[in-house]
């Protein structure tokens, strides 16, 4: 797994290494099964079109899970995800390349924890942010190694 990230390594303005995801229609079915979300707008094109959608769309919650993955990859085995927020502002279609990225906006200590607050977002392949969000993580201190 990636090198452990420590609280002291983090500075405000620092970027989180981005990750990309390539959800296909198969991914949507897989997610439907793994998460028990069988709302047909995510796998039945006729139903999606009748719902005034351009076709089947990527589950908002799958995009939230992708953004959670951005954070858990970054914080390493000893980091803890404390909070994740996502707004599903735009729709994403399967077969697009989705990029999860983020930036540190604050770092502080609270209740004995070293906390880092980040603005995060998921972008489509046109560079449009369809899912803005934020996250708070707790990181170990390298002084206590």
């Amino acid at each position, binding site marked *: *797994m990636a090198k452990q990230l420590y609280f002291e390594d983090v500075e405000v303005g620092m970027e989180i290494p981005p990750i990309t*995801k*390539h959800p296909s229609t198969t*991914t949507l079915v*897989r*997610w439907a*099964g*793994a*998460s*028990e*979300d069988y*709302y047909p707008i995510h796998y039945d094109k006729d139903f999606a079109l009748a*719902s*005034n959608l351009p076709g089947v769309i990527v*589950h*908002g*919650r*799958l995009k*939230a*899970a*992708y*953004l*959670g*993955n951005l954070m*858990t*990859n970054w914080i390493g*085995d*000893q980091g*803890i*995800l*404390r*909070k*994740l*927020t*996502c*707004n*599903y*502002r735009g729709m994403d279609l399967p077969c697009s390349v989705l990029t999860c990225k983020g930036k540190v906006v604050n770092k502080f200590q609270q209740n004995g924890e070293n906390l880092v607050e980040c603005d995060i977002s998921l972008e489509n392949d046109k560079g449009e942010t369809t899912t803005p*969000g934020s996250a708070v993580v707790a990181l170990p201190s390298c002084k206590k190694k």
Partner: protein
Amino acid sequence: MAENAAVTDEMKKWIGRESEATVIPIEKFMVLKFALATDDNNPLWQNEEYAKKSKHGGIMVPPNMLCCSMLSGGANRPTPPHNYNRRLDGGATWDFYKPMMVGDTIASVAKLVDIKSREGKMGTMLFFVWEIIHTNQKGELVAKTTSTGICY
């Protein structure tokens, strides 16, 4: 139409209503399926030997697994009857208090906390906000989900 005009008194009576608990034992295979669906190869939630040596001492449930409808969405959210048949997910916040481990049984209770309405591109839209409390088999609070659903 004015802000919240589509929220009727009958609907407002539902605010504060709680669901029965949805109780789900988290098994290793569910975590594996989640990791495959999200294309997440983190050994913390897949490799038993690796996970045993970590500070958690075993396979942890990825925190973002709470994004799954079976745990923080779905049919158990109290929702008043209405005439808007189409729905979308608006967004959510997850607060994580304690790690969940494979083998834990997670009970989730959803409460309707707010209803709003607004005119949008797709006509009248109803916004339901639920708060879902997740506890483990020891009764410890492990997480809270605040989720917004849109009907139009």
